[in-house]
């Protein structure tokens, strides 16, 4: 039996997942519920979290898989359909108080949650030949077993909550994508640093003198440097740290330095 270490997501990783999910949820929410409805996302490690989360049922309402551990499962309760019916009320969808969701509302709920899953996995998944259009069947038990490196999220929308589960490969993709393409603070800081000014000097060479020789230097004296006539000069920063080597010349009436290495 192979044993692998249990990966528990840390705070920074959960923040990245939350941010990535929030962007997906916002796009989906705008399309299905409009801008007047707010959606808030909270992310947490998957292990043991789904039990007791509002909206959790035995079987995922919708799930999408890109294969392996790249999957997302959405668990929604009956009230989610009511919220959706209200949001889509003008489109002939009515929530029947006595019998609950009509077939039309149930279909809209399926499509709405499928759109959320598609948004999270990054576009409609191509279901395999064995899978139904709805996607793979992921049960609550499956989701809880996928604890190592997997994430759970609660989406609060118009007073109703959805539960999401994300497979560890999908989670890893979210974390890596944000690390390689930072949109926030660091990217802005890197831009500022690039525009920052740096002072450089071209150094012909140096000479070591004792204090008495230095004190007696007068105009007309010649100080011999340690640089040969065919040796390159150095380009240094303000602190004298060597940056490059090259040769001194002139260009347009000014001294110029051509880099060689």
């Amino acid at each position, binding site marked *: 039996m192979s044993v692998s270490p249990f990966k528990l997501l840390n705070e920074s990783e959960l923040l990245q997942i939350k941010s990535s999910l929030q962007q997906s949820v916002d796009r989906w929410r705008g399309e299905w519920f409009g801008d007047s409805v707010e959606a808030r996302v909270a992310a947490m490690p998957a292990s043991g979290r789904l039990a007791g989360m509002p909206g959790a049922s035995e079987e995922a309402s919708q799930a999408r898989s890109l294969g392996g551990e790249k999957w997302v499962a959405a668990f929604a309760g009956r009230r989610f359909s009511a919220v959706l019916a209200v949001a889509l009320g003008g489109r002939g969808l009515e929530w029947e108080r006595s019998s609950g969701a009509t077939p039309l509302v149930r279909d809209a709920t399926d499509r709405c949650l499928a759109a959320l899953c598609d948004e999270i996995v990054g576009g409609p998944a191509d279901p395999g030949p064995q899978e139904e259009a709805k996607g793979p069947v992921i049960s609550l038990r499956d989701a809880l077993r996928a604890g190592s490196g997997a994430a759970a999220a609660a989406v609060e929308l118009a007073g109703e909550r959805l539960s999401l589960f994300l497979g560890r490969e999908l989670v890893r993709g979210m974390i890596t994508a944000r690390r390689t393409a930072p949109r926030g603070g660091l990217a802005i800081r890197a831009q500022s*640093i*690039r*525009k*920052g*000014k*740096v*002072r*450089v*000097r*071209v*150094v*012909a*060479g*140096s*000479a*070591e*003198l*004792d*204090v*008495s020789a*230095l*004190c007696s*230097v*007068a*105009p*007309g*004296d*010649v*100080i*011999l*440097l*340690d*640089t*040969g*006539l065919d040796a390159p*000069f150095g*380009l240094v920063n303000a602190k*004298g740290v060597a*940056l*490059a080597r*090259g040769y*001194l*010349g*002139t*260009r*347009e*009436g*000014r*001294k*110029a*330095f*051509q*880099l*060689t*290495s």
Partner: protein
Amino acid sequence: MMSSQQSEKPNPLARQVRLQEVPEEEPKGKEVLSGNLQMIKDVKVKVMVCVGGAELTVEELFALKDDSVLKLESATTDPVEILLDGKVIARGNLVAVGDNFGVSVTEIVSAPGL
């Protein structure tokens, strides 16, 4: 060679040195060296000769490649600077002395503290 057992054996002639606490007192009397450079006349110092400088952005600096040309701020006729610890102490002209470069001093920069 001395074995580790032997080295750990205390030497009866060696005694531990204990340093005394130095009392805090206001310095008084004449300066000990009183600016006498003779006391440090043999101390070696290193001077650096700078032919010019430029200010560029980090982006421009990182874009430099072999054969890139960096235009300096100083004109071709401007003297070079002789620096001690990053401060200009003299100016002069770049010359050839045998097989090496040298600087023919034209001006001594007098600055406070130098």
